[in-house]
């Protein structure tokens, strides 16, 4: 009898223990299954702006997930924020569990540093500025390398820096974003695709390129223009490329300059003036050439 009872108790105990054990593991697994997808309704312009900054941000997010300090934050928003308000908590619309912790202060502080560095660096050689398209490409590469290096190294330093610097994170040079670059000074916002499209349409309307010539190469015109805040042209646009002084290139360059003159003032977002006050237009009628 007693023996049977003991055996029964041992078995039940084992069963209970097993059940408990298996139950705990199940519990532990549960949160991992649920991967919430943060969703947010943004207007197209915000989305397009974000693209520029996204490249880097998500990577950071994942690497720092081990850090269990749940600071709800939206990287996206921070990117375009201008005023120094680093810790604005945003509630993700569809986010229930797993608040996707990101160690934000670190991340944010990290960005400003290179900015400062750059800003400090820039003024020195400025007087020598001359448009040299070729070297530019090289330097871009160089710069990129440099930046990575800085970031890793400076991460530690940044922790000591009081949280008072500019908060808007800079959009670093991205491999994919050649056309619309984030402002290196981190103060401004890149133009959105819709804004660029509107501007492009405005210029295209007035552009009457001399197609039908032989060399399509000759018809490429790189034009630098400076604009006033009201969208009007400030001074003559400058032709940055020379097509071997061929008459085709000259005519094409004139047609581009004429288009720019004719269609001013431009409807551009005033708050992004710093972004578009000085820009480069690449005129290339490749889509229009026949034959």
């Amino acid at each position, binding site marked *: 009898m007693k023996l049977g009872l003991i055996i029964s108790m041992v078995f039940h105990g084992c069963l209970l223990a097993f059940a408990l054990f298996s139950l705990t593991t199940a519990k532990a697994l549960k949160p991992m299954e649920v991967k919430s997808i943060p969703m947010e309704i943004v207007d197209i312009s915000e989305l397009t702006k974000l693209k520029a900054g996204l490249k880097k941000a998500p990577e950071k997010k994942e690497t720092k997930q081990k850090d269990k300090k749940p600071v709800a934050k939206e990287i996206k928003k921070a990117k375009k924020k201008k005023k120094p308000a680093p810790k604005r908590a945003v509630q993700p619309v569809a986010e229930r569990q797993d608040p996707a912790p990101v160690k934000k202060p670190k991340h944010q502080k990290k960005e400003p540093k290179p900015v400062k560095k750059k800003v400090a*660096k820039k003024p020195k050689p400025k007087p020598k500025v001359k448009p*040299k398209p070729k070297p530019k490409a090289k330097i871009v590469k160089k710069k990129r390398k440099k930046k990575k290096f800085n970031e890793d190294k400076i991460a530690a330093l940044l922790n000591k820096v009081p949280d008072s610097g500019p908060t808007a994170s800079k959009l670093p040079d991205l491999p994919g974003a*050649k056309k619309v*670059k984030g402002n290196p000074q981190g103060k401004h916002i890149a133009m959105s695709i819709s804004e660029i499209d509107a501007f492009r349409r405005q210029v295209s309307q007035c552009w009457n*390129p001399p197609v039908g010539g032989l060399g399509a190469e000759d018809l490429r015109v790189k034009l630098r223009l400076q604009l006033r805040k009201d969208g009007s042209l400030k001074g003559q646009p400058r032709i940055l490329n020379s097509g071997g002084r061929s008459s085709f290139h000259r005519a094409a360059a004139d*047609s581009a300059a004429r288009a720019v003159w004719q269609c001013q003032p431009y409807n551009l977002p005033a708050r992004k003036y710093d972004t578009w006050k000085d820009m480069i237009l690449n*005129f*290339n*009628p490749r889509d229009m050439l026949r*034959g």
Partner: protein
Amino acid sequence: MNNRARFQRIAQFFVFVVLAVLSFPLVAQAQVEIDITEGNVQAIPIAVAAFEGKTFEDQQSASQVVQVIQADLAGSGLFEPLDPLSFIQKDASVLSVPKFSDWRVIKAQAVVVGKVERLPDRRIKAQYRLWDVFSGKQLSGEQFFIKDENWRRVGHVIADTIYKRLTGETGYFDTKVAFIDETGGKKRRVKRLAIMDQDGFNLRYLTQGQHLVLTPRFGPKANELTYMSYESGVPRVYLLNLDTGLKRVVGDFPNMTFAPRFSPDGSKIIMSLQDGGNANIFTLDLATKKTTRLTYGRSIDTAPSYSPDGKRIVFETDREGSKQLYVMNADGSGAKRISFGDGRYSTPVWSPRGDLIAFTKQIPGRFLIGVMKPDGSGERILTEGYHNEGPTWAPNGRVLMFFRETPGARGGARIYSVDLTGYNERRIRTPSWGSDPAWSPRVNK
């Protein structure tokens, strides 16, 4: 040695660093860069202001010159000369900067001002300036002297410079057209060789119509013509000097010669020589009189035309049955068929800028004028009709002339021009019927 190489490497590195530092600010100032890949191709609105003239006669000449300029620019299809009545600034002068705001109001993109003066030595002095209305820049400004009976040429030359400055392409207004003038009923047509300005003015007859003449072609200097004539009873190729009026038979061949054309340097004439039911292509060196046979087929090889570099020749042949276009080297080697579309191809002409070959294409019931690349790709039809034939290129390779015949007993041939894009088809003014146009190269100043 080792040290030197080392030093070089260090120096190179140093240079690189310096360059990198120098251009750094450029990167730091990254600008918004936007691609504009589409435009709005339309005729450029241009205002040709009334040219000044001191005396009444000067003013008359001035307004005539302005009319020539306007007609040329409008005829190209690339410009839209604005109505002089809409002009706000009436006193535009070559000596002062135009009031751009006045011209902007009427939507002119460029404005031409000028002055014409008759000189005592029976010459005309014409000056002009072309201004960009939006940037306020002077785009060009020149003055010309010309014998007063050639006053139309001043207009053409000014139109050419405007055309070139605004489109980048050489103009073609100061050129001539040789063609076959046809008069009389369809059964008894009198065909005369004639020459005129490209706009149809200053017509001159070169033959009197006793003999049939065909296929006139200009030499590279525009002062010589070669053509086929029945003058001696048998069709022969002739050479005519337009300055002296002298003409002579080209070569001494037993049979009929036809479809002549100059080589690009003008030293040779390439043509077909009949041989029984066949025809082959020959060249004749005008200086040495040496003939060279280029094709040997038992077929009709004809309508040869050199590429502008003189290295290749396009011609038509029926060696595979139907008429097709072939390209061969200038020595006759390496002939290769380039036309593969439906129908028969004939009268190929290589564009003066080398990028295209124009041709006549015949499909049942229709004749088309088209262009293709020298390798036969990119065939494009520019115009079609009951009977279109004989394309000839403007010297800038952008416009073609051809003739179009209307059917019926009362029908006849007319000369037309069409843009390379297939747009802007225009009839060229001729006194009566006209066929076989040949566009001259640019006439030297």
